């Protein structure tokens, strides 16, 4: 039983370090969701099924969705900013 805890804990730590180190933001968000998912398994093993359910539903599902929505909003704005700045520079060169 202890071995299961140690293995899951190591996976969790590796996923946490990877989530912080990754360059791609979407991969980092999904890896942070994996940390929460393994955490919910640990909660289930430690005799707290209520907490495990909450962590699986909120920590790994809803938080990931919220992160992705916010990040897609930021990238969308990045795209429009880039397009409008290109447009501006073209207009400037024509004048």
């Amino acid at each position, binding site marked *: 039983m202890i071995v299961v805890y140690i293995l899951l804990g190591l996976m969790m730590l590796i996923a946490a370090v990877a989530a912080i180190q990754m360059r791609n933001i979407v991969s980092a968000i999904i890896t942070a969701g994996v940390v929460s998912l393994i955490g919910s398994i640990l909660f289930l093993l430690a005799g707290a099924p209520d907490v495990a*359910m909450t962590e699986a*539903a909120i920590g790994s599902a809803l938080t990931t969705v919220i992160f992705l*929505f916010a990040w897609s909003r930021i990238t969308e704005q990045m795209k429009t900013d880039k397009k409008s700045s290109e447009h501006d520079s073209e207009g400037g060169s024509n004048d």
Partner: protein
Amino acid sequence: MIKRIIIIITLIGLSFVLLPLFLNMEDAERLSELSQTYVTEGAEELGTANLVTAVVVSYRGLDTLGEVAVLFAATAGVTLLLGTKKKGGSVTDLLEERRGGSELLNTGAALLFPVLLLFGAYIFVHGHLTPGGGFQGGVVIASAFVLLLFIESDREFSHSVLHSLEALSGAAYVLIGLIGLWFAAGFLDPRFLPSGEIGRLLSAGAIPLIYSLIGIKVGSELIGVVDSLRRRS
């Protein structure tokens, strides 16, 4: 360089703060006196099968009320920061055309949406019997609405319905607390309804009622958060 040294020193200091927690702890053999009382008397006093629910809703009911208030404040903050965006405008013509979901996704989501709503309601109605409760059920309901957003990304949710649901359930929650103050021992005491037999759906006094209200409130708040954070075009 100095910044890095400061960071390392901070982390080492933090680990020294956390160290006594680790050294003084072994697997406890028995519960502390307060939790012993909650565990042994909670079942007979309140009639709940899930003792975590008894603690969340009744013994520590004031904490839950404060937590719901914090959740409301955070939701209000998100809506204040992001919710007042105007629709349409010049942004839309710069974006590429948005693709709707495929037919399989539409059919599957239409099939899953009512089932998910029912499942969320099941979770918070059975909060006093099985693991789960208002918070988890509310999240399941919110995820059903996220599924609707996947089909049609510019679907509008009616904000007045969400706000009135949230406000009404919050007010009803406090009202039930006050009824407990009047007819039973104290604020948020669920024993003004009969506690019934342990393990039945209609038992545990007003706990299923309170947890359902919390579920509706958390669900509508989280739908509001997701709705204001998603991208608008």
